[in-house]
């Protein structure tokens, strides 16, 4: 594929804007919509979740994204993960993206752990054959071999998170998106998942971490991006940006 402007990085955002359009009053039903439409028309609110965000990341780089709630951090991850198509601007991503936005989404309580592994793998775009090759590793990593044929409804929430993480992280991603994921599970699971993150980084994956923990940003990321109401407030070395952010919050 040839691109007009050279793209040799891994992630590049050029002037990304995302606009959500919502009816001013929430209209849930067709009946309501028809009535409103007849009476005085439906009014819409426009809300820019991201406004003109540009960014380039190379292989093996890591970026921490910080900012207050509603600053557009998760929206940015969604744009990179191909979940949201930007309203304006252009996003390019080289290679596969591990969508570690949340674990256990798409699990079914009546299916067994084994059946859920295959279903979840298919949701992530893997074929049956690929999942058969991965299955043994996933079970071993989740440490759930003895419960694997029991229905998921008998699992504790920690076990579900562990299984979800094992499926989602059994990839060699080029880009890894993390949205506050280090906050789930017990201490040993947290350590295990952090170890896997470092493994990915060692293999050259590009990491984007969304978190409220400045410590995590400084520990894991070279650079930090400070988002404020959808706009870039600062982008630079992690220690400097986090310090400025903490300073401003005071």
């Amino acid at each position, binding site marked *: 594929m040839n691109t007009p402007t050279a793209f040799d990085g891994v992630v590049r955002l050029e002037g990304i804007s995302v606009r959500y359009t919502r009816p001013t009053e929430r209209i849930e039903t067709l009946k309501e919509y028809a009535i409103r439409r007849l009476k005085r028309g439906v009014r819409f609110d426009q809300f820019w979740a991201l406004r003109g965000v540009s960014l380039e990341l190379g292989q093996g780089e890591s970026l921490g994204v910080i900012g207050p709630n509603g600053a557009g951090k998760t929206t940015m991850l969604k744009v990179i993960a191909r979940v949201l198509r930007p309203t304006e601007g252009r996003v390019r991503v080289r290679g596969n993206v591990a969508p570690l936005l*949340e674990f256990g989404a798409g699990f079914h309580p009546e299916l067994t752990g084994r059946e859920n592994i295959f279903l979840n793998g298919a*949701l992530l775009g893997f074929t049956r054959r*690929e999942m058969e090759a991965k299955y043994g590793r996933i079970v071993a990593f989740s440490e759930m071999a003895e419960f694997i044929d029991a229905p998921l409804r008998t699992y504790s929430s920690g076990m579900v998170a562990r299984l979800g993480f094992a499926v989602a992280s059994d990839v060699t991603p080029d880009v890894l998106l993390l949205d506050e994921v280090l906050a789930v599970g017990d201490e040993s699971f947290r350590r295990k998942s952090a170890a896997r993150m470092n493994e990915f980084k060692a293999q050259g994956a590009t990491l984007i971490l969304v978190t409220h923990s400045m410590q995590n940003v400084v520990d894991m990321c070279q650079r930090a991006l400070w988002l404020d109401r959808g706009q870039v407030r600062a982008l630079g070395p992690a220690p400097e940006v986090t310090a400025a952010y903490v300073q401003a919050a005071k």
Partner: protein
Amino acid sequence: MGAAAAKPIESPVEIYDSAKRPSPFIDEFVQLLRYRSLVAELVARDIKTRYKRSVLGVAWTLLNPLATMLVMAFVFQTLFQRTVEHYSVYLLSALLVWQFFSTTTTHAMNQLVWGGALLHRIYLPKSVFAVSAAGTGLVNLLISLIPLGVVMALTGAPLRPAVLLMPLAVLLLAMFSLGLGLLLSTLAVYFVDVLNMYVIVLTMWMYLTPILYPADILPASFQWVLKVNPMYYLVEIFRSPVHAGVGAPLAAWVAAALVAAGSLIVGWWAFTKQADEYAYRV
């Protein structure tokens, strides 16, 4: 593309570029082919979860249409047995068609609304939900052919070579149902009451379709109601080979093919046109 864990870094990597926008009508189809494993998994999930906690398991698929048929046959047999030969075959074959149609269209809507939470987190071709609903319907329809065969044998309805036309009838039925399911899903994302309204429409629609009564009991002034009802043709082409032992008239086949292709094209077009919007909706 889901690359295997052992994928070497040097292998040609794919580049996602939001500025390169292939036609959604075609792109959705390409993506659906890539995610065919997901369609298979979703069908397997639906079949398994439906029966997991039930004592009779898959037997329900056999018993459900059979029970409905028995009740209806008991009520209407005396009314129609003089005009309709092998009334139970007449009724059951049409009920199978209707059951496929109604469950596929409603299931497609439910699935997309269920999948809504996922669409906020990961990329998926949105049509997997409607297509897997049709897949689940096809599996159930296949299983239901067993009770149909049993009823045919018991009532002495003859099995003729015309039954070889049935796969084509099922294909057209699936195309029509999928198209309408996609069209309804497009609406259901925006309005929660579409499903409720549709259930009412379905009930009326069923009684307007000659499923439990013969078409000719309608007075001549009402025959146009049949002519504009796509399900009339789709029921006819499926039922005629098993009940009458001959294929339906060519005109019925042509009408069925036209409504099937029309529904699928319009449904697919409307659905894929909105494909980028779904992740924005809750």
